[in-house]
């Protein structure tokens, strides 16, 4: 008993209630979900088997991954441009840009999603204006399709792309870029051969972050997809609330959980590597 007391720091006694609370309220339900995926409606791997048998499930998986990939590429590309502009403009303009970025970061996802409907919807501002000017005869279908989902998701994700890239770019030594110019490299040569490789850790970090966040997107696809674009999160909610197939929902949730954990593992490997690369110049 005394030996035990010597090994366990008394501070743990203070933390223990909260640890137990977290375990009971967080780990418990997660384990329960995983348990459900192999027991409901009957014990076995039947739910996972469905993945290979059901065409619609496969289609949803494919749609989700496709939308997440396009969102990642789009928002990292735009975020890279914004971060680059922020790092290389004047201090004052930079703080304006950061403020605007954070404001859009803080606005509720619902508000941002519905604003897109008002702007780009069938009777939205843009279509009305274009029709009024006689540029188009029929409204352009921006919303209630995959394009709408992509516009909404990319817009929502841009701040998540900018912030890791901004940190990465700010840590670069600009003398290295000057050295490249001094050695005769043109602007684009310097970018492709020096700047881009040195910002790769930031690109990887923001890509993984956005891909993982996109996987769980629910509101934007539901509103801007108009029911035509079904992603996993929405499908899970349908299984839970409408068809009451908890086993299938639990299986999909479990797959997403492990997918995200696997990517986080890759990310942690990459971040360690990046400090090795960028540690000294």
């Amino acid at each position: 008993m005394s030996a035990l007391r010597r090994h366990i720091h008394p501070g743990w006694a203070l933390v223990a209630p909260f640890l137990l609370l977290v375990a009971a309220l967080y780990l418990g339900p997660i384990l329960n979900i995983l348990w459900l995926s192999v027991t409901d409606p009957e014990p076995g791997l039947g739910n996972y088997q469905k993945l290979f048998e059901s065409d619609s499930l496969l289609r949803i998986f494919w749609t989700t991954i496709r939308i997440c990939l396009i969102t990642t590429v789009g928002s990292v590309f735009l975020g890279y441009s914004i971060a680059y502009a922020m790092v290389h403009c004047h201090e004052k303009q930079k703080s304006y840009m950061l403020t605007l970025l954070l404001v859009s970061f803080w606005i509720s996802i619902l508000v941002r999603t519905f604003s897109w409907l008002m702007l780009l919807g069938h009777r939205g501002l843009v279509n009305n204006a274009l029709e009024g000017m006689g540029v188009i005869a029929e409204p352009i279908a921006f919303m209630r399709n995959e394009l709408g989902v992509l516009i909404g998701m990319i817009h929502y994700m841009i701040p998540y792309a900018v912030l890791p890239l901004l940190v990465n770019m700010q840590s670069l030594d600009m003398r290295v870029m000057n050295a490249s110019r001094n050695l005769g490299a043109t602007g684009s040569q310097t970018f492709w051969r020096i700047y881009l490789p040195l910002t790769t850790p930031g690109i990887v970090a923001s890509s993984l972050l956005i891909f993982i966040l996109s996987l769980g997107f629910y509101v934007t696809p539901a509103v801007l997809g108009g029911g035509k674009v079904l992603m996993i999160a929405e499908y899970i909610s349908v299984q839970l609330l409408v068809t009451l197939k908890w086993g299938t929902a639990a299986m999909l949730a479990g797959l997403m959980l492990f997918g995200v954990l696997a990517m986080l593992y890759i990310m942690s490997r990459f971040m360690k590597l990046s400090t090795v690369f960028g540690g000294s110049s």
Partner: protein
Amino acid sequence: MFEANSDKGSLQVRDVSKFFGTFCAVNGVDLEIQRGEFLTLLGPSGSGKTTLLMMIAGFLDITSGDIALDGTSISGVPAEKRNFGMVFQGYALFPHMTVRDNIGYALSVRKRPEAEIREKVDEMLDLVQLVDFADRKPGQLSGGQQQRVALARALCFEPPVLLLDEPLGALDKKLRVEVQDQLKDIHKRVGTTFIYVTHDQEEALSMSDRIVIMRDGAIEQVGTPYELYEKPANEFAAGFLGKSNFLQRADGVYALRPEKIDIRASGTGEGEPRLSGTIQSITYFGSMQRIMFLTNGGEELEVDIDSWRNRDPLEEGQSADLYWDKGAAVKLEG
């Protein structure tokens, strides 16, 4: 072996000024730099030496005046077209590339054939004695080795002029002396014009063909290390390059180097002493001793003497006489 650009590399700086807003960083500098010369810009921080170098490199625009290479103006030529090699403060090596790729970068962006780049890089690796480190990344090298990679990278495309911005600043003192010798040796072998920026007067004295002493954006004095040390033009030059005592006399101010003074116990020297007074303090430095001396007239002087000559030791508080040779005290301008 390395072939120097023997017909190129003289640089003319004509009445160059640089303003940042209303602040004048460089003020009307005129300078003729000879081909193959080792020229040092020496000055305290804020003297404009780095700004001048950055204008020569093309990283900063000049506000007025002109810079010319071999008589042709290069003021409007962007940095990447000037073909000047440069060794940056902190080296600025490409951290994601191997030593070989760092050194070959200038040739590679000029789209030279692979075989030629390889041959040239091997030559440079040999010149800076880094043959065994070709496949390492800069992060795996010591400071001195990184410095040599930076030098090789800047020399690889045979620039007519090499600019060096405090290249030894990050090295410890012992290594610095070693690298100074290597730099001098490399300068001799490649014959490129070196323009070297430093605030370290010892570095400037031991390496340069000529030194430019700068203060507040203007040139104070230009000359060989010998000229500057023996005949400083003004108080700033005398005080910044080595140490000096300043003697106020009726006809002006004289600069007198501490090591040119001989000190003897009162009444024991030959001839008429130049000054008499009391020893305030003696600090022992091994090979030499620094004596703070207060004359009877109230002037404070520093006297450096070789320790071996102080065999019959002088003591603090003792009265003593000072002697120096005719011409040791130099009259300053203005």
